[in-house]
C-alpha cells in the first residue's frame, strides 16, 4: 500500500439496478417513459395531474430536449418510471389497434397557454375519423380571427395523438397542413382513422 487506496471493486450492473429501483418508486414531480408506436417512438411524461407531454422522439431535441423543457417549465424532479406511464401506453395500444376512438387519461395542461388550452380542448372534441379546419377550431376556441395563433397552438401541441391535432386540416388546396411530427405521420394517423384511403 502506498499513499493511496485503490477504490473498491463493484459491478456497474448493481449500481444500475439500484438506480432503476429508485426511479421506479421515488416520488418524482414528473415521470417519463419511452413508448413504442406504429408512428415511431414517443416520449411520454406525466405529473400527478395527468399526461403533460407526448413527444415524437425524433422531434424537440429528442429525450434530452423534452426533459430539459419539462425541467424548466414544470420541475427538474424528473425520473424514468415506466410503470407510471402504463395507462397512457395501454390507451395508445388500443388506439392503434382501432379498439379505442377517444382517450380517457387525464391531461396536465402545464405546458400550454390559456388560449392554447382552449384550442386544444376544441381539437380534442373532434371525433375519431372526422376532421376540422383551422378556422373552425379558432372559432370554437372563442376567436375566429385568430387562425394564425390557432395554427401556432396546434403546432406546439405537447400531446399529439391524444389531443388529435392531426384532425385539423388546411382548406383550399394547400394539402392537409403541417404536423408537429411531420406530415407523413399526420397522413398515417388519418389513414388509421379511415379519413385518408390507401
Amino acid at each position, binding site marked *: *500500500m502506498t*499513499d*493511496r*487506496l*485503490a*477504490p*473498491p*471493486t*463493484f459491478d*456497474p450492473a*448493481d*449500481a*444500475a439496478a*439500484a*438506480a432503476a*429501483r*429508485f*426511479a421506479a418508486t*421515488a*416520488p*418524482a414531480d414528473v415521470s*417519463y417513459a419511452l413508448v413504442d408506436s406504429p408512428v415511431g417512438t414517443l416520449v411520454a411524461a406525466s405529473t400527478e395531474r395527468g399526461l403533460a407531454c407526448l413527444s415524437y422522439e425524433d422531434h424537440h431535441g429528442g429525450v*434530452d430536449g423534452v*426533459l*430539459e423543457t*419539462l*425541467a*424548466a417549465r414544470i420541475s*427538474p*424532479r*424528473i*425520473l*424514468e418510471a415506466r410503470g407510471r406511464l402504463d395507462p397512457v401506453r395501454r390507451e395508445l395500444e388500443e388506439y392503434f389497434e382501432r379498439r379505442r376512438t377517444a382517450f380517457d387519461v387525464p391531461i396536465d395542461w402545464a405546458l400550454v397557454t390559456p388560449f392554447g388550452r382552449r384550442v386544444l380542448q376544441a381539437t380534442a372534441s373532434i371525433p375519431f375519423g372526422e376532421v376540422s379546419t383551422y378556422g373552425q377550431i379558432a372559432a370554437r376556441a372563442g376567436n375566429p380571427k385568430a387562425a394564425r395563433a390557432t395554427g401556432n397552438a396546434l403546432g406546439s401541441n405537447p400531446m399529439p395523438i391524444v389531443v388529435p391535432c392531426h384532425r385539423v386540416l388546411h382548406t383550399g388546396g394547400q394539402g392537409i397542413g403541417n404536423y408537429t411530427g411531420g406530415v407523413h405521420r399526420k397522413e398515417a394517423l388519418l389513414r388509421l382513422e379511415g379519413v385518408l384511403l390507401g
Partner: protein
Amino acid sequence: MTPPPFQRFLDAHREPVWRFLVAAVGPDAADDCFQETFMAALRAYPRTRVENPRAWVLTIAHRKALDHHRARSRRPVPVGAVPDAPAPEASESSGDDVWDRVRHLPPKQRAALLLRFAGDLSHREVGAALGVSEEAARRSAHEGLKRLREELAA
C-alpha cells in the same frame, strides 16, 4: 439556471455513490443506503444548479452511511433465548480486505479515507463534506493510511 433533470443527475452519480457505499457499509447494506441517499437528494433537489453535484450527493451518502453505522451499534444484542443455529454475521464483508478494515477505523479516519478514495473527492471536498479544514481532512486520511499499514504489517 435550471438544474438538469433528476434522472440525468442519477445517471451521472449512481456509480460513484454505489462504489462509496459498498466501501462504507458493505454490499448488503449498500442498496438501502443508496435508496435513502437519492431520496434525500430528490427532496432537496434545488431549483438552482448545484456547483459540485458529485461532492453534494457523496456528502449525503456519507451521512446515510453514518446513520447506518449508528443504527447497527444501537441494535440490541439478543439475550435469553439462544437460537438453534448461530446467527450469520451480517455479511458486511465485501471480499475486499482493505475496505473491510477501513470500516473499523476511528470515525474521522474512516470518513476521510472513504470520501477520498472510494468517493474520489479531493481533500478540500472531503473537508467540506465533513465540516473540517482541508488540512484536517488530509491529516485524517494520512493517519488512517498509517494505521492500516500497521495493521496489515502485523
